[in-house]
């Protein structure tokens, strides 16, 4: 019998107008079960993955991928920068190293406004103020802000005294740094920052960039061990260490990963229940068509034909369910992203919109798994159909 005719037989067995209502209901429910299981898994992965990616993207948007610092919080200077630059130039994939000075300050904008903010000096283009801070200070590009710092130190006849500095600057642009925390900070040129904090030559950390395609974790390990060797061999006073920037938030990503695994297990169990349901549906459909199989065998359907019809029924139900689940999850992710964005409290979650990213790898794995299990649960009805003689099947009412 041609494969397409076997398919047609299997299809009519699981779904046709002449089927009993029970068969159609059982088929529909098992398709729906598999679809829900697959969709739940894919949608979960889409949004948990989307959340993790968005946070990672936000964190790396204004921070270079590699972070070089002095463990314990000690400061660095331009000399240290030079040392790191020369060491990094020997490491493939690292494209450049720059210094940063980052300190808290008091900022005021429109009359009556004042706020504490992190001020970061780096190789930026002019002065960019985070959008939340801009709103708080009621300023836009072109407005003036005042930055006050009490960190300045002056040595005078009275000894070391703290000196207030107040600097007036013009805002060049208002920026969205992706993460709530950064939107309450401002970024300006390194030289300006050093003037504000009276910290000539000083740096709080260094950042290194990598070329596209370079794994930041690998690059940071290479740089870190090179820095260590240099420190041990050169007898420098400061010991510098390098980690990938995201490793700062390693615990966050670990927690997110753990949560994702836990939820995946729960939803995978839903899928398993759906597949058990599918298995009982197949048994039921096999019972309803026991006599028909006897008739087909009387007409000369071979044992392998009987086996294949049973397997195809399983593939039809599972395949339809899986495809429906994939389609549904794809459409929902698209619709949520475009028309019903999930709003988050940015102060809690760092990002204000939860993005869904269709997880291709997960979707393929889930679908493959579903189809394999459908095949497996189809084998029992198939074998039991063959264990009966055609005569026995024909007498079955």
């Amino acid at each position, binding site marked *: 019998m041609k494969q397409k005719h076997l398919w047609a037989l299997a299809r009519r*067995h699981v779904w046709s107008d002449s089927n009993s209502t029970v068969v159609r209901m059982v088929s529909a429910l098992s398709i729906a079960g598999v679809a829900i299981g697959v969709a739940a898994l894919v949608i979960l992965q889409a949004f948990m993955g989307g959340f993790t990616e968005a946070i990672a993207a936000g964190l790396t948007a204004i921070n270079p991928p590699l972070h070089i610092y002095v463990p314990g919080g000690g400061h660095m200077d331009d000399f240290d920068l030079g040392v790191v630059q020369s060491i990094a130039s020997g490491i493939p994939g690292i494209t450049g190293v720059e210094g940063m000075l980052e300190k808290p300050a008091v900022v005021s904008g429109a009359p009556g406004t004042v706020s504490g903010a992190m001020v970061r000096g780096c190789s930026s283009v002019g002065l960019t103020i985070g959008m939340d801070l801009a709103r708080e200070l009621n300023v836009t590009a072109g407005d003036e802000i005042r930055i006050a710092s009490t960190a300045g130190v002056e040595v005078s006849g009275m000894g070391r005294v703290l000196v207030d500095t107040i600097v007036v600057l013009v805002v060049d642009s208002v920026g969205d740094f992706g993460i709530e925390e950064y939107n309450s900070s401002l970024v300006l040129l390194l030289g300006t920052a050093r003037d504000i904090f009276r910290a000539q030559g000083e740096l709080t950390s260094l950042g290194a960039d990598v070329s596209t395609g370079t794994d930041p974790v690998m690059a940071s390990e290479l740089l870190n061990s090179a820095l260590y060797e240099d420190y041990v061999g050169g007898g420098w006073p400061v010991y510098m260490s390098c980690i990938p920037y995201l490793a700062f938030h390693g615990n966050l990503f670990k927690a997110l990963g753990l949560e994702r695994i836990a939820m995946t297990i729960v939803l995978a169990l839903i899928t398993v229940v759906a597949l058990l349901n599918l298995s009982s549906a197949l048994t039921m459909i096999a019972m309803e068509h026991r006599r028909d199989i006897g008739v087909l065998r009387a007409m000369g359907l071979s*044992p392998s034909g009987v086996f294949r019809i049973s397997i195809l029924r399983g593939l039809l139900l599972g395949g339809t369910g899986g495809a429906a689940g994939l389609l549904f999850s794809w459409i929902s992710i698209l619709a949520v992203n475009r028309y019903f964005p999930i709003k988050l409290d940015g102060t809690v979650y760092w990002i204000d919109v939860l993005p869904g990213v269709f997880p291709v790898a997960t979707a393929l794995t889930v679908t493959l798994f579903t189809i394999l299990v459908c095949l497996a649960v189809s084998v029992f009805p198939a074998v039991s159909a063959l264990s009966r003689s*055609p005569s026995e099947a024909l007498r079955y009412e």
Partner: protein
Amino acid sequence: MSKEIVLSAQNVYCSYGSDDVSIKVLKGADIAIRIGEVVAVMGPSGSGKSTLLHALGLLERPEKGKVFICGEDGWAMNGRKRAELRNRKIGFVFQFHHLLEEFTLKENVMMPCLIAGESSEEAAGKAERLLERVGIIHRASHFPSRVSGGERQRAAIARAIVMKPDIVLADEPTGNLDTVTSAEIEKLIMELAEEGRRSFLLATHSEDLASAVHRKVFLSSGILNESE
């Protein structure tokens, strides 16, 4: 063995149940049917007519004995070969039409051809010609549940002969029909046997049907006799 014999069985034993409580239904049945011959197996209900037809039609393996279809030992081959033999040489008509409910009458008649691996077009052509012949072409696209008992049995007969089998086994083909329809079906069977020089083995306890056949055999105490 004579070439004229399309079906023969020797010393067939069949029983149901386990060893301790077994019902012996056939106890050494013998039969031989020639080309074009229409034979009726007579016997009261429960005498084992269906059991005999299933054993002869290679649907249930007898405990003992041999069944030859066109000279081939039907139970001495593997399942695939036996299925092929059923497909090409044997046609079945059941008491309860046993049409496939999810398929139209035409699709039901096409089914043996599709099982043989023919294309849909080829099978559809044959099915239409046969539905025309048995007088229900106007019901071709109807489902079995939407047509009368007589029409169903006509479709079942068309399905049984669509592969031009050498022997058609019919288990009480008129058992579930009213007398008028029964008479029509009987007439159709006799005509089809005549036209195709096709052999029929009919299980029946209807004297009307039996009166028209070429030869009668009687099943009693698990054995076939030429007279009552």
